[in-house]
C-alpha cells in the first residue's frame, strides 16, 4: 500500500494494496510527512475503506450470481471499482484484481491546482499499479503473502504517483 501524500500542498495521494485476508501488503505514498499521528490517521482511512470495498464486492457478486450462475461475468467484471467514498478531506478509490488483491488509492479531495482528479486518471494509475504489483510478485524471491519490501517497487510506485498528478 502506498501513501502518496503531498502534505505540503495539503494534498495526499496514497495507495494501498491488500490481500484477500485484508492484511496490508504494502503501504506507501508520497509526501514528506512521516509523523506518527498522520500515519495513524492514514492507516485508519485505508483500513476503513475496506468496509466499502468489501461491500462493493459482495453486492457485485450477488448481482452476478442472481442474474447468471456461471462465473464468466464475475471474471469479466471491471477490476476498477471507482470512487468508494469521499470524506471532507479525502477521496478513496478501489481496485480489486482477479485474485482478490485489493488496491486502495487515497487522494486529497482537492488538488493544489484546484482541479479535481479525473476518474480516468485514477483508473490508469491503478491499472499501472496493478502491473507493477504483478511484476513485483513475479520475483521468485518474494514470498506470497509477505509484505512487499522491494525497493524497486517502492520507487516505481512513488514515481507513478508523482507523474500521475
Amino acid at each position, binding site marked *: 500500500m502506498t501513501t502518496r501524500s503531498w502534505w505540503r500542498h495539503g494534498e495526499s495521494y496514497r495507495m494501498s494494496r491488500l490481500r484477500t*485476508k*485484508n*492484511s*496490508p501488503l504494502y*503501504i506507501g505514498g508520497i509526501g514528506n510527512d512521516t509523523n506518527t499521528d498522520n*500515519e*495513524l490517521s492514514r*492507516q*485508519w482511512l485505508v*483500513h*476503513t475503506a*475496506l*468496509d*466499502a470495498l468489501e*461491500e462493493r464486492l459482495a453486492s457485485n457478486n450477488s448481482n452476478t450470481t442472481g442474474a447468471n450462475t456461471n462465473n464468466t461475468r464475475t471474471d469479466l467484471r471491471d477490476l476498477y471499482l471507482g470512487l468508494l*467514498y469521499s470524506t471532507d478531506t479525502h477521496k478513496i478509490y478501489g481496485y480489486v484484481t482477479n485474485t482478490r488483491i485489493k488496491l486502495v488509492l487515497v487522494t486529497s479531495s482537492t488538488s493544489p491546482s484546484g482541479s479535481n482528479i479525473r476518474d480516468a486518471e485514477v483508473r490508469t494509475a491503478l491499472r499501472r499499479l496493478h502491473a507493477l504489483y504483478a511484476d513485483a510478485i513475479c520475483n*521468485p*524471491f518474494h*514470498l*506470497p*503473502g509477505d509484505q512487499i519490501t522491494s525497493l524497486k517497487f517502492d520507487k516505481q510506485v512513488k514515481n507513478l504517483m508523482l507523474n500521475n498528478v
Partner: protein
Amino acid sequence: MATQPSDSTDFPPEIILKPLALIGLSGLDAVNNAVHKEIWDAFANNRRPDRAAVRFKLLNNTFEFPVVKPKRNSYEWYIPKGILKKNWIQKRISLIPAVVVLFYDMEWNDLQWNEKIIECASKVQSIRAAVEGHATRVAVVVIQGGQSPPPSEYMLGAERAQALCAACEIQSKSLFVLPHGDHLMGYIIRLENAFYDIAQNYYHHETKNIKQHRDHLNKTTHQYLFVRHQFKLGFLNELKQDLSTAHKHYMHAYNNLLETRTVDTNMHEVRTVAGYINYKLCKLLFALNLPRDGIAQLKSHIERYKNRIGSTELLFEHYAWIARQYSAFGELFDEAIRAGLPGIQTQHPGFYYQHAAQFTVKRRQAMRSVCSEAAQYPPPPDPLEGIVEYYGQRAWRPGRLSADPHDPQKEQAAVLALQYNERMFNHSAMIISFLGCAISQFKTFHSPRMRKQLVVEMANEYYYSADYGKALTLLSHMLWDYRREKWWFLASHVLNRALQCAYLSAKIQDYVQLSIEGLSKHIQVPNNDKDRIFRNIMAILDMKLPESEPDVPVHSQNKAVEFWQTAIEKEPVVLNVDMVNISSFLEVKPKFKQQRYRMDEIVEVEIYVRLTYKTVLEAVKAFLTISSASETIEIPITQNGNSLISLESSKVKRFLCQFKPNPHDNGSEIHIKNISFIMGSDKKRKIVMNFKIEDNKMLDSTIHPELLHFILSPKADFEFDCIVPLTVVSVTSRECKLSIDIKNCSPALQGEWFPTTFTITNNEDRPVYDVRFTLSLLSSPDNPNPESVTELSLKEGNTTPPRLQATVIGDNASQEVVREMFDKIFPQNIFVMPKYNK
C-alpha cells in the same frame, strides 16, 4: 438508540415535536360522567399514526385563553427586539385551540327542549367570550342516546337542529350529533376528521392574517420580522399538515435570516434560530421523502455557518452548536430510517453522529484554549439569570440590538460565567455518547472496520476521562481484530494505549499479557523502548512495582502507584497468559516425529522454540500436555536432563519429549493440547505462558516451506519457519510376533488319516502363556458341513475329537506343539484352518 446527551444547545421540545392541530373539548365531565369519560378516552387515547394529525385538550370552565395583543396598524415605529419569541410556538400548540367543541347532552325529543336550547346557547356564548379576539372556531356536538329516533321524528330532529344552530349562532355544518351507543369509535373518528377540517380552515385563515403584515415591513429595520413571519407561516402550515408549503415558508425564513447582518452580539441568536429552522427544513424534507435534499440542506447549512464564529472568547459555543446540528440531523435521519427509508453504507446517520463527536472534540480544544482562566464562577448577581423572551438571546442583554455591549462589566462577568460552565462540562461523556450512537449505526450498515475505529476513539475518550477499566475492555476487544487482520501499525497503537490503561488501573493480568505482546516483533512501542517493557515483566515476577508507561497523565500516575502497591502483593499469584491468540516474543512449534505409533513404541515429540526478543530467558520450566481418549498427561520438557531450561534470542531450540502410550489408547489418537512455559518458576509469582493448540487452527497455516527455499539468503530462522507442526498422531496396536506354519502332503485321500503339522514360532522377546488353539474346517459349496464328514484326532485311528493342549512357548523357541495330528478324511476336499487365541 442511545439518548442524545443534553447541554445548553439542546433543541427545545416544542421545536422537536411534530406540530398537531389543537382542538379544545369543552363540556365533557370526564371525572364524574361515565359516558363523557368514554368519549374523552376515545378521542385522546390510542392515537395511532393513521388517525388525523390533531391533538385534543380537555378545557374546563376556567380555561383562559392568552390575551390578544392589540392590533398594530403601522410598523413604522416598531423595532423588533429579537427574531423568534420563545412563547409563540407554545401558544400555538397548547394554548390556542383551532376549534373549541362544546359537548352537550340533549335528545331531540327532550321534554324541556326550550330550557336546554337556552342553556346550550349560553354555554356557546361564554366560550365565544373566552376566545374573544382569537379566530378560534366553535362547534357543538350533541350527545344523544344510542337508539335511533322513530321515523316520525326525523322531521322534528331536523327542525330542532336548525333551531339550535340559530340559537347558538353557528353554521349548520358546525353542529354534530354523537349517538352514544354502539360504534362509538366509528363516530368519533368521523367527528375527529370533521374537526380536523375546521382546524385546517382556521390555520389557513391565520396564515392569511400574517401575510397581510408583510406589506407594512421594510428591509432596513424589519429584517427580523421577515424571518419571524415566514417562520410563523411555516409553522402554521405545519399545523395544517401542508408540508410542502411549510417547507417553502421555512426556506424563505432561512434565506431571510442569512441576509441579516451578524455581529458578535447577535451571532448566537442568529445561529440558534438558523439551527431551529434548518432542523425544521430537514425534518420536512425527510417527511416529504426527499432525503437527498435533506442531506444537501444540512451540508449547505453547515457550510454557511461554519465561519460565523462570533466572539472568540466563546469559540466553544460555536463548535457545540455545529455538533448539535449534526447530532440532531443524525437523529432525524435515524427516525426516517426506522420509518422505512433505506440507508446505505455510504450514507447513514452514523456519519452525522461521528461528526457530532468530532466537533465536540473541537469544542473541548476550544474550551482548553479560552477557558483556562475561568477558575471561578463570577460573584452574584448571576449574569446568566433572567428571563429571555427570544430564542438564542443572552440573559444579560435581552432584547438589545445595538452592536456594542451596553455594560462591559456585566458582559465580562457573563462571559466568565459561560466559560466557567464550559470548563465544568463533561465533554467526554458527550463525545462517548455520540460515538455510541455512531457505532451502533456503523454496525447496522456493514462497516465493521469503521465501527472498530470509533470504538478505539471511544476508548481513548474513556482514557481521557480517566475511566481506564472501560477503556481497557474496549481496547482488548479491538486489539483482537487488528491483530487478526495483521494491521500491525494500528494494532500497535491500540496495544500501547491498552498498556497505559492496564498500568493506570493496575490490572496485573492484563498488564502482563499486554506487555508480553508488546515484545512481539510486529508491535511498535513508543521510543522503541522494549527493554522497559521487559524489565517491567521481570519486576512483576519479583513482586516489585513496574515502571510507569510513558505519556500517562500525572495525577492518574500517582494513583496508579498506590493501586500497584496493593495489587502487587495480591492474587493472582500465578498469571496465565494465553499465547496463541496474541502475537508474542516466543514462538513454539510442536511436532510428533512420526505420523503413527505402535503401542510398543516410544512416542517422541519435538518442540521447537524461538525467542524473537533480544534477551535470555533463564530458569524457565516447560510442560507439554498430551491428551488421548483415556487421559491427559503433563510431561516436563527438559534440557540435558535439567528441568530448568534457558532460551536465547534468535536461536531456535529443539527439545525432545518422550513417553509411552497408554495401553487403553489403542486405536485412538493422541493430541498435543498445550505447551506451557513458566517464567519465574522458582519465585512466588509465576507467569505461565500457555500455547494451547487447537487442531483446526493449525490447518490454515500460511507457511509454504517449499517456497522458503527460494529465499536468497536463508534467514536465521529458516529452520523454524520450515517446520510444519504435527499435533495429532494415531496409535495402533502392536504387531504380533507369533507366526504359524502348516505342513502336510496333499492331496489327501478319502477315508485316510491325513497328517498335518502346525509349527508356531514365537519371535517375541518374552514367553507367551496360556495359549489356546482352535482348529476348525472351512466349509465350501461342495462341502457345506465339513465337521460332520471329517474326524480330527491327535493320534491316527483315534476317532474321539482332539483336545488341543495349551502349551508354553518359550523365548524365540520354535516348538512343534501339535505333532502327528491325523485326519480321517471322507470327502475329497479338505481344508484345515487352525486358529489360535492368546
